[in-house]
């Protein structure tokens, strides 16, 4: 097994223990301006707070990079839901991550047009240049992180630019017809 968590360079088992340790010991704190933003988003759903679960999770993931157990419980408390109801949503959408990504998260489209235009080769090339090992990727944790923690990568479904494959998203930047991986990566220091 290779490292999935960049910040803890020990084995993945040890990093799991560390994560567990920190999530238990360190309190999960949502900065007050983020909480204010979340509270505002909740007001958009006057009939049922439950409907705000997606916007709240998006806001938390945007800030923390992924949705930890604490984030799930914080959301549940915020929306007066049972934690399992939030976990159902988090696991339903592949867009929500339960594991920490790298500093820059890359999504490579693998739907038909991009796959034919070379998205698998693109994936391989990025992994090779960043040292990412995807052999530990599973259905439940589709993300692989580079040993230095700088990049993480996963396949995504159609990113809506079928005429210009292969395409990928790095954080929120869209890159079309990617052929030069070095220049792509060099944009992210």
């Amino acid at each position: 097994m290779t490292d999935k968590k960049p910040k803890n360079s020990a084995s993945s088992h040890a990093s799991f223990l560390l994560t567990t340790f920190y999530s238990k010991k360190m309190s999960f704190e949502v900065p007050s301006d983020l909480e204010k933003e979340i509270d505002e988003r909740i007001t958009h759903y006057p009939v049922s707070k439950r409907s705000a679960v997606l916007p709240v999770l998006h806001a938390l993931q945007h800030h923390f990079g992924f949705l930890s157990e604490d984030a799930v419980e914080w959301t549940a408390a915020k929306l007066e839901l049972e934690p399992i109801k939030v976990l159902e949503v988090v696991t339903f959408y592949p867009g929500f991550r339960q594991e920490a990504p790298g500093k820059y998260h890359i999504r490579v489209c693998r739907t038909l047009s991009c796959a034919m235009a070379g998205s698998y080769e693109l994936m391989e090339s990025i992994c090779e240049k960043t040292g990412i090992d995807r052999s530990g990727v599973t259905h439940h944790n589709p993300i692989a992180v580079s040993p230095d923690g700088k990049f993480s990568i996963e396949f995504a479904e159609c990113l809506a630019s079928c005429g210009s494959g292969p395409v990928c998203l790095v954080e929120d930047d869209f890159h079309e017809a990617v052929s030069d991986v070095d220049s792509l990566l060099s944009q992210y220091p």
Partner: protein
Amino acid sequence: MSEEKTDLLDVQIDGVWHKFPKGTRMIEACKQAGVEVPHYCYHPKLTSPGNCRMCLVEMGMPPRPAPGAEPAEPDEDGHLPISWMPRPVIACANTIGPNMGIKTTGPLTEGCREGVMELLLANHPLDCPICDQAGECSLQEFSVEHGKGESRFREQKVKKPKNVEVGPRIRLDDERCIMCSRCVRFTDEIADDPVLGFTDRGSHTVLTVYPGRELANNYSMNTVDICPVGALTSNDFRFQMRVWFMKETNTIDVNCATGANTTVFTRQGKIYRITPRQNNDVNSDWMPDSHRLNFHWIESEARLTEPLVLDGDHHRPATWSEALTKSADKLSALKGSEIAVIASARMTNEELLITNRLVKHLDAGHVDTVPRIEENDGYLIAADRNPNTNGVKLILGLDDPGSQLDAIREGIEQGRIKGLIVLQENLVGDAGFSGELLGKLDFLLTTYPLANPTADLADVVLPGACWAEKSGTMINVTGRLQRLNKVVDGPGATLEPWEIVRDLIQATGGGNGIYAATDLFKQLAEQVSEFSGISWEQIGDLGLPLIETGETIPLIEREKERIASGLVVG
């Protein structure tokens, strides 16, 4: 009458016209018409998410006339023609409409069922031979009736967690789960303990208990009952017995005054499991785990299986006639005022009636029962943990059961009470009598299913049958008369408590002539005004309201509200 009539709608089911009240779900209308619509997710006591799609049927309504066209003419019976919809609808969440047509057969419905079954079986393991649900599995049954009979699925089945301990009494096999969500809704809506949910998506969807939590509430095992497949199984019953070998006996629970209606599953005189039996006035479809599992002691090593008499400083086995003769000798040496009888509110009405006769026959100075008042759990468990306190009040005439116990203790202490008959109770364990106090008695007789500290001190110990080994009636917390039915034979020379009391009356010179608990019930109907005019058969499997107690069962009251609001069918 006319109002009632307008609330009835004409519905045609498989070509036959019926009338149903407005608001009836299509699936319930079909059921009432004797037509089964297969289903997994639908449960009348839970909300209807309509997610399994097994209950798809063909539906039609009268055609809407085109602008300017004449509306269709009703036929001679007043029914309009039906215009069938080209797509199916789910019968569970839709209600009937006026002049609606429902077809539960035909190529559309049958094709839907085949399709649903094929998809459900695509990933379902073929482990029926070792699955506890086999024999009572909806998936198995509907495979026979509605399945294709062959599989086109050539791919690998999805692997999911197996043998997951979701709670102390429940195990989950996620590969068997068909995602009907009954258990999720039960824990949300009935047990108020929402720890279950579905995580992931599509064919990877798994039933999950929230990490760090467990399905441990006292109603958790009801999820096993309502699981249509073998996904949730009971740790207690798992791999113990194939369901088709077991005999089912309808009876009632005796762990509290609610008297939940139950089915007891036995094979060759051994109880394997107890499940709740639907009674919307008592326990709906549910029962507490603590009550359903409280039967293993029946096979305990400590069971009394033959009469014992005190011989010097130890008990030795005796025949019934020896034990009874000895009791009669001792009792006849005492005056009535020197004898006290402590009966049990766990006894049936019939046993209490004959106990009352014993009290009168001996002219006993004191009679009482042992009270068991704890907390009401807010669901189905009554504060009164005795099943028949209302019977005690009616038949023994005790207004405040337990109030005489102090007087009896004092009487024994002061030597005024010399003989004590304890029927189906353990005074040392459950009523705070000290062994030292009981040692002052000249004569102590006890009947009880198990060896116990009171019996240790008794001159005569008689093996009395437990609840599963006797028949009779009890009156629950709401005043409902219900039947307790004999499930298994008592071990060894055990007798039903009413038989013991009858024989004791006879041994002390009284008459008898009673050969069955039903004879005693006839006498109850003659002698106790509340029972007059009621026959044993009339009580049936669901019981009948006998007296007004003003008490209610919290879960049942909540269910009535949910039915009234249309949330559930009931």
